[in-house]
C-alpha cells in the first residue's frame, strides 16, 4: 500500500470523551429497543429502526474519530465530507429510529413514568398562551428550524468563520455543536420523531420542506466549486496531499457539498413521497366499496366461479 495512504488510514483519534458518550447512547438505545421489542409486536422496535440508529451512531463515529476528522485539517474536501456526515447523514438516521420512546423504555418503570409525566407537563406548558412558551414554540417551529439550519450552514462556511474554526479548537467545537443542533432541529420536523410539541406537518409539506434545502445547498456548492481563488487561506499553511492544489481541493469540496449533499435531500424527499403514495393507496383501498355482488341469474356465464363477497 502507498505509505501516504497507509499513514492516513492509521490516523484514528479514539478520544475517550467521544467514544464513551457514543457507547452510552448506543447502550441506552439498545436496552430500550430490546425491552420494547419484548413487550410489543415489533412495530415500534423493528430492525429498520435499530439499523437506522446504528447507522447514525456509526456516522458520528466516522465523522469524529476516523481519519476523516484528522484529515479535515489538511484537506478541505475531507472537511466537507465531515460536515456532510454531521449535518445530513447522522441526524436523520438517528431521528428516523424515533429514539426518544426507546430511551424511555431503557429506564426503570418508575423513572420512565416520572419522565413521561414531566414531558406531558412540558407539552401542556408549551400549549399555554404565555410569552415564553409561545416564543419557544415559534423558535422551534418548522419555518424557524429551516431558517436556523440555512443560517448556520452558510455562516460557518464563510471564509473568516471557517478559518477561525480551523485555527481555534474551541471555535471548531462550537461549529460542530451548532451544526448538529441545527440539523437535529431541521430533521426532527422531517422525521416527525418524538417528542412532538408542534402539530405534525402534512406529508406533502415535509417533502416541500426537505426540497427547499436543495437550493441553498447547491448555491454554496456551486460558489465553492467555481471560485477563482482559494476562499480558505488556512489550507495554504499545511502540506498538500496527493498533489492536490488548494484550489483543486476546494473544487472537490464544493462538488461534494453540491452533489452528494443535495442527493441526501433528494433521497429524503423520495422516501417521504413513497410513504405519501403508500398512505394514499392504503386509504383508497380502505375506502373502496366492495364490488357489487352479482346475482347468479344476472351473470353471463353461470358456470364460471365468482368472488365470494358479502352481500
Amino acid at each position, binding site marked *: 500500500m502507498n505509505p501516504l495512504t497507509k499513514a492516513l488510514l492509521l490516523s484514528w483519534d479514539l478520544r475517550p470523551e467521544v467514544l464513551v458518550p457514543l457507547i452510552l447512547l448506543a447502550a441506552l438505545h439498545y436496552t430500550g429497543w430490546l425491552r420494547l421489542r419484548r413487550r410489543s409486536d415489533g412495530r415500534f422496535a423493528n430492525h429498520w429502526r435499530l439499523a437506522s440508529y446504528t447507522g447514525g451512531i456509526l456516522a458520528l463515529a466516522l465523522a469524529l474519530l476516523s481519519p476523516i476528522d484528522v484529515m479535515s485539517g489538511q484537506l478541505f474536501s475531507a472537511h466537507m465530507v465531515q460536515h456532510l456526515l454531521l449535518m445530513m447523514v447522522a441526524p436523520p438516521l438517528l431521528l428516523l429510529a424515533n429514539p426518544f420512546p426507546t430511551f424511555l423504555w431503557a429506564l426503570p418503570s418508575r423513572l420512565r413514568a416520572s419522565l413521561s409525566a414531566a414531558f406531558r407537563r412540558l407539552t401542556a406548558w408549551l400549549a399555554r398562551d404565555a410569552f415564553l412558551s409561545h416564543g419557544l414554540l415559534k423558535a422551534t417551529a418548522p419555518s424557524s428550524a429551516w431558517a436556523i439550519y440555512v443560517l448556520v450552514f452558510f455562516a460557518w462556511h464563510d471564509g473568516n468563520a471557517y478559518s477561525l474554526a480551523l485555527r481555534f*479548537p474551541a471555535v471548531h467545537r462550537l461549529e460542530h455543536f451548532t451544526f448538529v443542533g441545527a440539523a437535529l432541529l431541521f430533521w426532527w420536523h422531517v422525521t416527525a420523531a418524538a417528542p412532538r410539541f408542534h402539530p405534525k406537518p402534512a406529508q406533502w409539506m415535509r417533502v416541500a420542506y426537505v426540497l427547499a434545502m436543495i437550493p441553498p445547498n447547491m448555491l454554496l456548492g456551486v460558489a465553492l466549486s467555481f471560485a477563482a481563488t482559494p476562499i480558505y487561506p488556512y489550507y495554504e499553511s499545511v502540506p498538500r*496531499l496527493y498533489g492536490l492544489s488548494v484550489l483543486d481541493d476546494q473544487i472537490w469540496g464544493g462538488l461534494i457539498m453540491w452533489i452528494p449533499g443535495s442527493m441526501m435531500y433528494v433521497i429524503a424527499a423520495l422516501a417521504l413521497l413513497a410513504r405519501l403514495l403508500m398512505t394514499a393507496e392504503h386509504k383508497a383501498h380502505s375506502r373502496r366499496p366492495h364490488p357489487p355482488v352479482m346475482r347468479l341469474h344476472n351473470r353471463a356465464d353461470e358456470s364460471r366461479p365468482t368472488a365470494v363477497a358479502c352481500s
Partner: protein
Amino acid sequence: MRNSQHTIHTRLLALLLLTGLLLPSPLLAHGGVGLQHLNNVPAGPFRVYVWSDPEPPQVGEYHVTIALTENVEGDATGLAGGPVLDAYIIVELLHQESGATLSARATHDDALNKLFYEASFEPSQKGNWTVQVRIASPGCGPAGSVAAQQPASSAPPCEPPQVVSFQDEILPKAFPWQAVLGGIISLLLMAGAMLLYLMTRPPAPAESPAPGNGQRPAPAGGSS
C-alpha cells in the same frame, strides 16, 4: 428492598445525568495543530512546517509538531512535493536565560495525524526558549551524530542534517478560566432545566373542604 430499589434509581439517574453532561462531547473537534511558527520553509531537500501546542505555551506542557515535504526543484509554490514520512528528527529546546536544554525525538507515534511528527516536552521554566529542529534524511540515522553520517556503502552519502529554528515564549501556568467558564455554563443549563421543570409543574390539588351540614348542595332540580 425499598432501599436497594432507591439505590438503583439513584445510580440510574446519575448515569443519565452523566450521559446528558457528556452528550455534547462527541462533537468535540480538533481545530488545528497549534500555533504555526514555520510555514513551507525550504531546508535542503525538505520543506518544513512547524507548529507548537498548547496555545499560548505554558510551563509543564509543550508539544512541537512537524510536517515535512519534498523540496522539488523549480517549484515556486513549494507545494508540489509529497510528504516525507521516514526522516529522523530531533527537537531541542534551549532556555535562553539559564541555558537549560531539553531534547526529544519527534515521531509519528505521538502525532495524531500520522503524516506529522511530534515531540513532547515538560518545560519547568517560563521565559524565552529557542526551539531547534534537526532533520536527517531518510536512512541517515540520528540527526546530527557523526555515526549517522556514515551510510551503507551502496547508499548515497548522507547530507548533514538540516536545522531550522524559532523562538517561543513559555508563560507561567495560567488560571484554568476555560474550565471555570464551562462549569458556569453547565450550572446555568442545569438551573434553566430546573426552572423549566418548576414552571411546568402542575399546581397542587386544592384540598376539598369538609362537608358541613349547612353547605349541602341542593338536590338536582332545586329545592322547594
